[in-house]
């Protein structure tokens, strides 16, 4: 029984350490707003021009782009991170 408790303790510590490491790495990998802006600028004409003409950021205000990009992410089935980069780029205008 004691041996079993030791094993579980070790497993728990390892799991906790692993989680902390993964979270730390994930936090390091989170792009900054400027990086998202640059990515969005690069992808805008290709993604947004796939079905219709790409509409410039100046057509809508910041709040409208938040809503529109949610709609477009669903409609066009955009990858989540790319949709976020496009949102940051378009709402900045």
């Amino acid at each position, binding site marked *: 029984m004691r041996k079993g408790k030791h094993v579980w303790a070790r497993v728990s510590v390892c799991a906790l350490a692993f989680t902390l490491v993964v979270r730390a790495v994930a936090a390091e990998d989170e792009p900054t707003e400027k990086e998202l802006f640059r*990515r969005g600028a*690069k992808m805008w004409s*290709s993604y947004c021009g796939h*079905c*219709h003409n790409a509409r*410039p950021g100046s057509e809508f205000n910041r709040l409208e782009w938040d*809503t529109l990009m949610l709609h477009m992410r669903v409609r*066009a089935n*955009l990858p989540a991170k790319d949709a976020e980069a496009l949102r940051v780029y378009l709402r900045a205008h």
Partner: protein
Amino acid sequence: MIGARVGRQCRAGDYRHQQCVRSAGMSLVVLIMMVVGAIPAGAEPSPDLRRELELLKAQMERSRTQMEQDRQRIEQLERQLQSVEAKGEQKSKEMEEQIAGRLLNRSTFGEYIDRFAGEHRFQLTGYGTAAFEWQERTNTNTFRSSLNPIFLYRLSDRLLFEGELELKLEDTETSADIEYAQADYLLNDYVTLTAGKFLLPFGEFIERLHPTWINKLVTHPLPFREGDEGGLLAFTNVGVQARGAVPLGYGDGAFGEYAVYVTNGPRFASTARGALMDNNNTDQNRGKGYGARIGIEPLPFDYGLGRLRLGASAFDGKWDENGKLWFTAWGLDSVYQNGLFDLRGEYLQLHRNMPTGMPDDRREGWYIQAAYRLAQVAIPYLDRTELVVRYSGQNQNALTPADIEEGFLRKPRQVALGLDYWIAPSVVWKLEYDRDVPSGASDRSAIRTQFAVGF
């Protein structure tokens, strides 16, 4: 002579100075050998020969000096070029930082307004059209108009309600229909859940290309005509779906997408062979419809090969009231875009089991469309023009007597030529000429023009 030619080449600042030196050296050796060969053994060179040799040596020396100067000049220019390139890159990065910083900085007043407005956001968007149509086959000569408002309500970053109304003028009335009304919940980065009435995720045209300001032609491809116009599939169904996209991991822009759904299922205007497909807002049998679409965009942006999307779709369900007879449909779709050129096409096949004693109802349809934007033509107005051509057709082994009387054909074919003038990215004037080219019938023409606004 040889020495003079080589000297001229090297003096001209030729970058291949090593080759110049080599050929000059070789020339000198040859010359010396010729001179030495000409001098009999033990004989003194004549004064003329000596003078010529001295002249050649001096010329050689001058060429060598010139080449050395050229080499130093080239090295200096290369260093300057590297410096200019480094400065240019640095400047470009600084400007990028400035622009990004200025655009992303939010004023305190702006933040206050954001908080005051709250997290919920309502937005009205949509599209409207005004059109004129002259059609030989149906003896039509009329103006038309329609309005499709789209309501978007964002409850949070994960929850969206959206709906589209379709308001159309028909004869003496205005028809109103719910094109779609759905709730979308973003479960995570890869899964979005949708419930309600939604556009069928079958191919590309139904879900993404049919709005009038997006469709590059006035008409729909033959298999995708809406409602009772003779198309093959109902545009919408009521149910639930899960959809999403997954990056492929080897470059930005390369991803796969999917949609799987369960709905009320397929429904037809009647049980007759050849009957048109209808909306199924209230399920008439215990069976449901099951469908899926997968797509892939394999080319990352950085490859510089354009954009390619390939997709495959399926939709099956029991269509009769007793829930015993199957309807199956499958389709393929593809889009390729590169710069100003756009090529897309779809193919679909449908099969409806009929009651015992009746042959099955089989249908297929397709279209292929190419478009080219004349943006690089340096002529005013022409640079906003886009040329479009589409060939579409469908085959069905049966039509109802009413449809035959309406003028529908079992095997219609159509060539459509279009000219679009883009006033703005979402505002377009379109002109279309259609030529019906059905097998075994006389050709019929139609001219259509449409002004469409996406707002």
